[in-house]
């Protein structure tokens, strides 16, 4: 297979070798898997841990959907083993238990699955490889960040076993419900939630510090900012968002903890506190958070799309500026989650307008993706299918977002299943589709084997169909007036006629669960039995494809020198249809300036 070697070896040797930047040696035995300073191992640690949480979060979702589709029917098989905080003796989910399931599902998916996969796993694995560095700037901090994530995971899991059970206040933990123990009845569970969020935040901050420093200071010679692959750009911008958004949630979580356990009254009206303060702090974090969960996904698909369209990304710089402005604007729109909070109407209109402005850079990105596949020679591989599906699902989710950004519409749909449809289109159809795409795409680099394309295609088609079957009807449920976070829709007169839609969603959800199992079967089968992968199976241009699979300790045998932008596909006049970043273009070829 074509392995591109750094072209001028003697030139490269003038530059000290990447390996020199870190003195730690490779760990042996079990410690290699548990306490490693190698960014690739840390990335894989994040990957596997997050996959475990993914299975748990998925199981919780199945329970939630079962209850909504078939309210008050005992859960088959496992129902009788559920703790009494979740289900009654015969295995029927009880209303309070339903709230716990929803809360834990969302908390786990957001903080323990999507963020760790996109940022922890892909970020760690790809950043040094893509910028031509031997490792992260601070390998020790990197491993500490992973273990902080694991510790926060233990705290969130402990909430299930707390007296009174897990918190049931939603992932948004609105006060005063969350802040007053006699209201929520889960003082311990809610406190563990706060601790978990706080420690998880420390992990995020440690990781983000590392990423920003690494990207700014450790790029290989020639890797200018505008030659950075878009994945790296997206992770840089995401890290900046993490640095500015996460600590505010940490502060809020701490105050919540003190309200619950020390009798403070930050969020309790009785002592002069304000429940709305929680909402402001939470959403000051929360809206940037949704971009934290979508920007890296955008980065991954922007990277995968040109490979399988064999065309450069359309409007590389526009992509960068669009991501940067999405990140910036993301900090001034949080009020769109609070339109019904009794907010002043002028302020409300301001938030509505600022939110709609974000649609502009989002639209730019969408059209650039279309421009990238336009007239390309598209190869419908599994990663490409997920990437294309990402774009279409993101458009649906983005459009419903613009509906909701308009205050009068939101007054009607707020806290209904319309919102639930919206954020699953952007989070599952968006972030998770991109994660799947990324796994199929970088699997050969990570495990030096190919994934099975047939199983992959089955996974893709099933996921795509069942995803839409599950979540599209939720738009209709929401417009029909179905509220979020209710355990039994059939007790409401106006929702009874909509119950068939709920059954459809539930069927879709179980299909989605099964198709995810296909993915895991493929994953494990391919790790052990997949055909050996060449170093550059997709004929891609970025630096990680120029070295062995998996890359050795220290990544680059010689520091690569970068001559080109990241997406030189189908360069006119060249005999091969791609030009790796570390290969000089033949002298007769004129590249567009990057």
């Amino acid at each position: 297979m074509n392995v591109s070697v750094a072209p001028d070896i003697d030139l490269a040797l003038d530059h000290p070798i990447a390996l020199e930047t870190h003195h730690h040696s490779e760990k042996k035995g079990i410690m290699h898997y548990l306490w490693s300073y190698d960014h690739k191992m840390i990335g894989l640690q994040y990957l596997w841990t997050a996959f475990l949480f993914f299975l748990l979060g998925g199981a919780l979702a199945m329970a939630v959907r079962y209850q909504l589709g078939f309210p008050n029917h005992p859960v088959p098989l496992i129902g009788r083993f559920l703790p009494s905080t979740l289900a009654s003796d015969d295995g029927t989910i009880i209303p309070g238990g339903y709230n716990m399931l929803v809360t834990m599902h969302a908390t786990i998916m957001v903080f323990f699955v999507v963020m760790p996969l996109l940022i922890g796993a892909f970020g760690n694995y790809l950043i040094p490889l893509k910028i031509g560095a031997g490792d992260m700037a601070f390998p020790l901090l990197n491993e500490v960040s992973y273990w902080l994530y694991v510790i926060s995971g233990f705290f969130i899991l402990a909430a299930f076993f707390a007296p009174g059970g897990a918190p049931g206040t939603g992932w948004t933990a609105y006060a005063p419900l969350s802040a007053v123990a006699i209201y929520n009845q889960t003082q311990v569970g809610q406190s563990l939630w706060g601790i978990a969020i706080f420690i998880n935040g420390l992990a995020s901050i440690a990781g983000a510090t590392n990423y920003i420093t690494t990207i700014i200071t450790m790029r290989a010679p020639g890797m200018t900012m505008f030659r950075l692959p878009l994945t790296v750009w997206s992770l840089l911008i995401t890290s900046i968002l993490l640095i500015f958004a996460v600590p505010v949630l940490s502060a809020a979580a701490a105050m919540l903890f003190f309200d619950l356990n020390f009798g403070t009254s930050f969020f309790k009206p009785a002592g002069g506190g304000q429940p709305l303060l929680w909402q402001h702090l939470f959403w000051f974090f929360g809206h940037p958070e949704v971009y934290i969960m979508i920007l890296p996904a955008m980065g991954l698909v922007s990277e995968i799309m040109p490979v399988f369209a064999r065309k450069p990304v359309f409007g590389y710089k526009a992509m960068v500026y669009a991501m940067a402005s999405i990140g910036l604007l993301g900090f001034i729109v949080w009020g769109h989650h609070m339109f019904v909070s009794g907010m002043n109407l002028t302020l409300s209109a301001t938030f509505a307008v600022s939110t709609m402005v974000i649609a502009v850079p989002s639209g730019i990105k969408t059209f650039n993706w279309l421009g990238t596949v336009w007239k390309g020679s598209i190869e419908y591989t599994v990663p490409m299918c997920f990437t294309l599906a990402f774009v279409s699902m993101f458009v649906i989710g983005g459009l419903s977002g613009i509906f909701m950004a308009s205050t009068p519409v939101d007054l009607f749909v707020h806290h209904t299943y319309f919102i639930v449809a919206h954020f699953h289109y952007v989070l599952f159809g968006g972030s998770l589709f991109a994660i799947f795409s990324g796994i199929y795409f970088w699997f050969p680099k990570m495990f030096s084997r190919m994934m099975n394309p047939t199983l992959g295609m089955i996974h893709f088609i099933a996921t795509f169909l069942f995803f839409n079957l599950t979540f599209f009807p939720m738009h209709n449920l929401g417009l029909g007036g179905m509220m979020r976070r209710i355990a039994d829709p059939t007790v409401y007169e106006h929702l009874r006629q909509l119950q068939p839609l709920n059954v459809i969603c539930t069927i879709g959800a179980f299909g989605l669960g099964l198709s995810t199992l296909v993915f895991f079967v493929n994953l494990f089968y391919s790790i052990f039995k997949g055909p050996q992968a060449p170093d550059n199976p997709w004929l891609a241009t970025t630096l990680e494809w120029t070295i062995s699979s998996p890359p050795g300790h220290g990544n680059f045998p010689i520091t690569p020198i970068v001559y080109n932008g990241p997406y030189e596909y189908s360069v006119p006049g060249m005999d091969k249809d791609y030009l790796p970043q570390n290969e000089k273009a033949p002298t007769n070829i004129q590249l567009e300036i990057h």
Partner: protein
Amino acid sequence: MSSSALTTPFDQVHSTESSHHGAPPHVCKFGMIIFLLSEAMLFAGLIGGYIVLRLASAQWPPSPDLPALPKVLTGCNTLVLIASSLAFHMVEVSVKSGKTGRRWLLLTILLGSTFLCGQAYEWTHLYREGLWFHVGGVYGSSFFVMTGFHGAHVLIGVLLILWCFLRQCFFKSFTQHHHVALDNVGLYWHFVDVVWVFLYMILYIV
């Protein structure tokens, strides 16, 4: 060699000495500054919340029989903390001029600990006067949580400086040309002081 056109920060990475983790000094400092930005946001969240709650309160303290915060005593304590920042600055000056800076380190530790003791005294004093986390609504809440968060930062700072001091005594770890950990502890320490000046202003003075 035309590599000047290709120059990136990577080249500087190798030019100077490395810390024990491998990253060169300017990289370490860069990372520290990013981290401190996030710390600043943590305090911004707390302070922002405090401002919102306080503005919504008709009078402050919310009830006249709540004890007032000791402005003067804590004002002196604030001066102590500022002095400790200056002392740490002298650590850096003397290390850069080739000395060990041990005495200045010790002085910083003493001043930092004095500040902590002052805070501990103040907490116990207010506790005896009947003010605690759960007393006086947001008045007690915000005071104890904010000074508590800051105090924890000072404690960590003192421990870090103690660590520097011990390393300096036993291993002579920091020299004229090798002092990045010291610089970073310094950045942290100065940051914690600056935060305190803000906290003192809004909690005690305004």
